[in-house]
């Protein structure tokens, strides 16, 4: 059983602030995905990271895969209300998801 722990569970910030959320495990993953889910909708894939140490950028979102491929982080620069949602990470090995970080960005 590969558990994915996401932190923090909840995060509420003002528009324009920066933030980082984390996805940690004791297991090694061949790849890891990040999804964003808005209320009443299904999760939408943001990115897949594959190589240890890899950094991927998606506009104001920066994703990093740990060197040992056991953890990942998502950094958002200058957060906007449109970034509000539930951010989920998923390990490739057994299709398990973390419990998510619920982000609220206030105008």
């Amino acid at each position, binding site marked *: 059983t590969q558990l994915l722990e996401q932190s923090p*569970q909840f995060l509420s910030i003002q528009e324009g602030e920066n933030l980082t959320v984390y996805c940690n495990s004791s297991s090694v993953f*061949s*790849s890891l*995905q990040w*999804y964003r889910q808005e209320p*009443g*909708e*299904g*999760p*939408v*894939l943001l990115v*897949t990271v*594959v190589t240890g140490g890899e950094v991927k950028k998606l506009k104001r979102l920066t994703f990093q895969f740990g060197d040992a491929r056991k953890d990942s982080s998502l950094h958002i620069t200058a957060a906007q209300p449109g970034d509000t949602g539930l951010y*989920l990470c*998923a390990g*490739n090995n057994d*299709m*398990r*998801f*973390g*419990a*998510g970080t619920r982000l609220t960005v206030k105008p």
Partner: protein
Amino acid sequence: NAGVTQTPKFRVLKTGQSMTLLCAQDMNHEYMYWYRQDPGMGLRLIHYSVGEGTTAKGEVPDGYNVSRLKKQNFLLGLESAAPSQTSVYFCASSYRGGTSGASYEQYFGPGTRLTVT
């Protein structure tokens, strides 16, 4: 191209009733999945399929059955609904290999909100 669709969107059942949730995808994906999502617990895999005619158990399969008679459809059945099955159910599909070479980049449907009273 509709992606992944789910029917129905909402359903209320009484304890002991049965129902089937339908998932359809038009992306020619090999893999399909059923998840349930409960507050504070993220998404938990119920059953999945790696191809037409094949199914496998996930993390929380008890009380559910599935069938994949056609590649584009994946059905989730509840034979005797229980209040513990009150949840939001999501279907997803994926290519055998994603754009980054990863097998499990999943595309999700909009969900079915099920209440069992």
